[in-house]
């Protein structure tokens, strides 16, 4: 199966070893040996069920309302978390699309976890939903709302009451995204 994949798409980004590893994992998650993963397959990962963002992260594995996740799709999502290579980015052909593990794409992945309605903006309501998931029950609704308000206001630069992707990246420009959104094992 691995051999059949277009090499540029997969092996170009992942090393052979980690690809193999991912493939084994893929097979292990696929409980009925049906050749693809369903939402159920991911939901049965115990730790994911207690992750406050678990549901949303599962969603991001099934873009565009797909119900089936094949191995290339699986790898493509995980490729976001590959550490950034040391090689000089100048070598890359500018026409080529940015690699999935670039800073922008990492950020975009995080951004779409917030942006549920896919309108390119995190509205106050969406921010509130995320906060409700993340912040413990100890904080009251009212406080949560004021946090959401303030968070949006803080990042919102054009005053439209929502955080666009540009504003999102700007609010995180001081953060080492390349490091914070990478997993070494996916090299």
């Amino acid at each position, binding site marked *: 199966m691995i051999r059949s994949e277009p090499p540029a798409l997969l092996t170009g980004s992942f090393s052979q070893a980690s690809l193999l590893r991912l493939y084994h994992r893929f097979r292990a998650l696929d409980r009925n040996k049906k050749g693809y993963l369903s939402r159920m397959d991911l939901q049965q990962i115990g*730790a994911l069920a207690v992750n406050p*963002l678990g549901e949303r992260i599962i969603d991001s594995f099934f873009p565009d309302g797909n119900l089936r996740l094949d191995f290339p799709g699986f790898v493509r999502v995980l490729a976001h978390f590959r550490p950034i290579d040391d090689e000089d980015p100048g070598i890359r052909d500018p026409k080529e699309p940015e690699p999935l593990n670039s800073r922008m794409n990492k950020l975009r992945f995080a951004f779409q976890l917030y942006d549920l309605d896919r309108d390119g903006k995190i509205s106050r309501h969406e921010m509130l939903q995320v906060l409700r998931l*993340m912040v413990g029950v*100890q904080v009251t609704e009212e406080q949560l709302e004021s*946090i959401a308000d303030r968070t949006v206001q*803080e990042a919102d630069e*054009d005053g439209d009451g929502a955080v666009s992707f540009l504003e999102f990246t700007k609010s995180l420009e001081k953060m080492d995204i390349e*490091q914070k959104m990478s997993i070494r*094992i996916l090299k």
Partner: protein
Amino acid sequence: MLCAALPLLWLPLAGAAATEEPTPEPGSPGEPPPGLALFRWQWHEVEAPYLVALWILVASLAKIVFHLSRKVTSLVPESCLLILLGLVLGGIVLAVAKKAEYQLEPGTFFLFLLPPIVLDSGYFMPSRLFFDNLGAILTYAVVGTLWNAFTTGAALWGLQQAGLVAPRVQASLLDFLLFGSLISAVDPVAVLAVFEEVHVNDTLFIIVFGESLLNDAVTVVLYKVCNSFVEMGSANVQATDYLKGVASLFVVSLGGAAVGLVFAFLLALTTRFTKRVRIIEPLLVFLLAYAAYLTAEMASLSAILAVTMCGLGCKKYVEANISHKSRTAVKYTMKTLASCAETVIFMLLGISAVDSSKWAWDSGLVLGTLFFILFFRALGVVLQTWVLNQFRLVPLDKIDQVVMSYGGLRGAVAFALVILLDKTKVPAKDYFVATTIVVVFFTVIVQGLTIKPLVKWLKVKRSEHHKPTLNQELHEHTFDHILAAVEDVVGHHGYHYWRDRWEQFDKKYLSQLLMRRSAYRIRDQIWDVYYRLNIRDAISFVDQGGHILSSTGLTLPSMPSRNSMAETSVTNLLRESGSGACLDLQVIDTVRSGRDREDAVMHHLLCGGLYKPRRRYKASCSRHFISEDAQERQDKEVFQQNMKRRLESFKSTKHNICFTKSKPRPRKTSRKKKDGLANTEATNGKPPRNLSVQDTAAVILTVESEEEEESDSSETEKEDDEGIIFVARATSEVLQEVKVSGSLEVCPSPRIIPPSPTCAEKELPWKSGQGDLAVYVSSETTKIVPVDMQTGWNQSISSLESLASPPCTQAPTVTRLPPCPLAAEEPQHPFNLPYDPRPSFAFPPSLAKAGRSRSESSADIPQQQELQPLMGYEDRTHLSPGTANSHWCIQFNKGSRL
């Protein structure tokens, strides 16, 4: 600290009497007991604590002196200066007393001086950073220290075998290994003292510093094992002893850590129940941490590790449990003790070096040791980093390695350990002492001096401190969750997985057990950041209240500054927005004298911003309680009041910004007027509720609505004392209204007149910078405002009529007038500009004259007259494009309050 350091300076009484106290003792044994002495000198009774206090005082004074010159301290680390000072003091003492006094005693050092420093560093250790780099730290601490000890010891032995060390240094391989073990450990005190001033990036700092803290376990074990081997004699050491030595490494380190964690648990649990005895909270922190240290020391486990883990483990829960004041107390006491201990250590190190009776010099040994510790440290770092980089997400580059090698400072731990050696068992002790002193001095002074230029020269990534933002905090949590989830999906149980596990365990059980119910909130980090941001805003709001208050383009200090918020004064804004609000002021306000204006601003700031406590703070006499209920409630009220004001004005400005951006404003006043007129016609449709067509009525309406809102808010807030709250809210409401109207580009002129004008304002109204002042409406506003506005309005009209200079607010007479009749009367002739002014508002000739003389150019006056009809007209019907927007904004504010 004082009591703790009591045994610090046990000194022979005779010496002390000779050096410090030349006065003969009156109560010496030979004399008969004197009668009732008027004056008695009791040096001996206070001697020890007195000397301790004196030493600390000297050290502190020295610190002050060092820091007098910024140049010196920026070049030379404080530790170097202190050591040098110690050398000088030691020389003086030696010269006076003919023998060395006040040395660094190992017992004192380990029991009293070291714990505060380690506790401080453990407690304030950035735990996330520490655990993120735990792998590297442990490697350097364990493998690195073992490597250094064995290679240095063996190399020195080789040096001796090669005949480069003088034969009078009688030492076996075991002796050298012992020496290697004590000299190889990087010292937390020295590292901290130097690296705190260097500001390298966080990762590098935590690795070097974490290593220096954790390697204590290894050092202690190695030292003890080698020492017991030396004492047994190398012939008697069995193979099992080596095994035991290895095993003891684990026992000592893990045992020390366990002791620390147990005490951390106890400490957290205890602070959960201190709600009624807040006063002992800081004490508990210190006591239990010290108990952890002593317990570990007693069980010959690693005490440094114990107290580090105790501080690291308990902080989260303790901080959540104890009160804010206790937190501050803990922080400052800890920092004070640590810096005090550090100062004393370095000074005593300097003094101890003077005592030549204790050491014997051997150049071969000294130079060899210096070379070997530098060489093997560098080699060890390179080798370990190479291995570590295979596993690290962010590899440590060459520059990092250089700094790590060079940052391996030795310090007082090594010195104290070498002093502890038994001379009968280790015949070469004196040589070792001398070598250790040289090594310590070399690393602290030479390396300490050069590391800063080196870091600069190598362009090591410095740490950059930026203020936390809610977004960063929130997104960081999101990233953590994402990574944990991805690790789950990938099926790799890595660091993120375990951290996630731990956090869930902590949330479910540990925090439930160790934290007060009320403390949960603070525990949540996002909430915590939000809270701290609010506090900081409140503080800076109070600090620079005037400036922020006066700006409609208000910025929260914690937010990134934006260009669009550049407008700083209401007057500016008004002028730009083309409202006729300021009437004559607009024309003349360039004439204002800065000083008058400042005075007036201050006056109104104080009137509007000062919170009037409903009762005085009680003087607290009780030692056991800080009566804080009343105070804290009041503080909270002030805080809430400020924050409410902030938030509301902030919201309105946010909306203001959107349309300020969208519509560039013309600069000239007169053109503005026309603009305003045009706008008026264009958008004449729907006036918002609280900006009625008629401006006097509008004022009164506003005031009424304020009152409604106030009662609402005071109800919802469930405050008990309505009167004062009412007043306080009134201020904020008025403020808000003004702000909103500012953003509307509509500013009904009368409201601009300050309620309680200063003298200068009364006399010279155009001097008051009223545009600015509009914001500071004093607490009496609710009653005075309508009347004042009324008068102001009338006066401005009268000024038109009489062709006189600017109007004068006659506050004292006018405020007596009941507002209602005026309000009822006004609407009938609202825009009749030639509406005849009340006789009572005619200008006193003297004032008018004064006014005219003040207005520098008389050319202004005709212009002003020309303008006023326009302004009046505009005021009546003015509607800006932003009106609808800001109307919404007011609603929004209200909604949020409820």
